[in-house]
């Protein structure tokens, strides 16, 4: 546990000593804020009850684009700089390295989510929103965002080139997102399979305020699977 914390802490240090985290968080919040402004405008115009349903789906979609640049450095740079050799010869297990990196990216995600609580506060100040569904939405955001980060960690383990890692992660995210669309144009059984695999379908309930164990399990197992794969990829680096 201590090892994971030490690695995550150093990684956070690296995030905030370079402009990457600041820039990513700022741009993310500017876009999300703009969407929020549009959403609020719509709610005021049509008198719909205040909710963050549309906001959440946009914010999750934005992570599809913002997760890769935040995760690309994590393991790729360690491999390029030779510091991975240092980590792997320290009394640290491979999975502790992977989890440390993952938790660092998760902290950046969490920070962004905490800042985005202001949307809920604004709605609360000027309307009477239902807070329960919002909490579910934020949980969904954390789970979906976390899964996207874990995909980024895996991509970063596979190469020592940051750009390649980012592109790999982005393509993987896109494929997962598109799977649901592929499901809609196929026969019923394939529809179900694709819908189960696709990212999009599993987020919808959260935005509506429903926490379905099916969806929670989907995201948690996606994270577990990708992080396990990342650990194995790291292990194979030793054999080369």
């Amino acid at each position, binding site marked *: 546990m*201590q*090892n994971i914390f*030490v*690695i995550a802490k*150093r990684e956070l*240090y*690296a995030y905030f*000593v*370079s402009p990457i985290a600041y820039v990513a968080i700022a741009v993310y919040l500017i876009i999300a804020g703009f969407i929020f402004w549009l959403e609020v405008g719509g709610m005021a115009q049509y008198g719909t009850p205040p909710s963050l349903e549309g906001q959440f789906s946009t914010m999750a979609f934005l992570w599809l684009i913002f997760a890769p640049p935040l995760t690309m450095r994590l393991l790729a740079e360690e491999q390029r*700089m*030779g*510091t*991975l*050799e*240092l*980590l*792997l*010869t*320290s*009394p*640290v*297990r491979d999975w502790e390295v992977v989890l440390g990196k993952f938790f660092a990216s998760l902290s950046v995600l969490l920070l962004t989510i905490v800042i985005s609580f202001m949307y809920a506060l604004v709605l609360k100040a000027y309307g009477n929103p239902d807070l329960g569904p919002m909490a579910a939405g934020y949980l969904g955001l954390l789970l979906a965002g976390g899964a996207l980060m874990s995909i980024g960690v895996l991509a970063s383990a596979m190469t020592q080139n940051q750009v390649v890692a980012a592109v790999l992660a982005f393509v993987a995210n896109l494929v997962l997102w598109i799977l649901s669309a592929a499901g809609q144009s196929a026969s019923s059984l394939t529809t179900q399979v694709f819908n189960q695999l696709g990212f999009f379908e599993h987020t919808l309930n959260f935005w509506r305020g429903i926490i379905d164990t099916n969806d929670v399990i989907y995201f948690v197992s996606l994270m577990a699977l990708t992080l396990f794969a990342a650990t194995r990829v790291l292990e194979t680096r*030793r*054999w*080369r």
Partner: protein
Amino acid sequence: MIDVEGLTKSYGPRVAVDDVSFHVEKGEIVGFLGPNGAGKTTTMRMLAGYLPPTEGRASIAGFDTFSQSLDARRRIGYLPETVPLYPEMTVADYLDFMAALRHVTNRKAAVQHAMEVTHIQDRARMNIGKLSKGYRQRVGLAQALVHDPDVLILDEPTIGLDPRQIIEVRELIKGLAGQHTILTSTHILPEVEQICSRVLIIHRGKLVAEDTPKNLGARLRGAERIGLQVTGDGAKLQAALAAVPGVQSVQATNEGRYEVAVAPGQDLRAQLAETVVKGGWGLLELAPVGMSLEEIFLQLTNEEVVA
């Protein structure tokens, strides 16, 4: 402290390290010598627990580097060939991170001590990315020392440094002997003569020699050789020297310089001097030629070519 038995590493059909065995006692400084690509780095990586061996085993302080990897790694300070540094961190933060990773209890004191030993306190607050090559190398060493490990594995610790820095790092390594067991690789031969109590020579993955630098020289030296610098007619001198009893051959090496090979165990210096002076030549210099480690090394690593 370091036990290596039949250590082998192959990458597909290519054998990088071939059945290497050796022992290093506690407190020893052992030099690991070999041409580039001989398998030094691969061997050290296996010892450090980075690469698993294909065959054979290695243990550090009694812990197997593969099956008890974490225990073995806790006792090692490792400086890889490319010094692994995070350029965005300050020296002190980096060392603190390494100390935390190795579960050092009093990190502040450990970091301070490592910086003192390697003389980098004045750069503690600087970003590693802004340091000169010499300082980076020392930060790398400080990193290997910060948890006070039993065993230090240093892969080419003086590579890329200027002569003054090389001397500093050598002094540093020498100063660490006794408390730490050190295995250091290099392809700079005088370095080994200066700091190591024992030398392992590796060539094409195989251990070809293991001895003290001095014994290696004695063992390989077929004949004693004496160098002379003389003024005057060369051809006659050569003949005169060759006529001295016990002389095996006389070679002109340079303008006015000669090397005389003498059967081992005989000291013919007095006779040679007498011959030169009596013959009317001017004797400028007369000294035994020791076999340098370079020659030993070349001889060992060329044996296959010669044979």
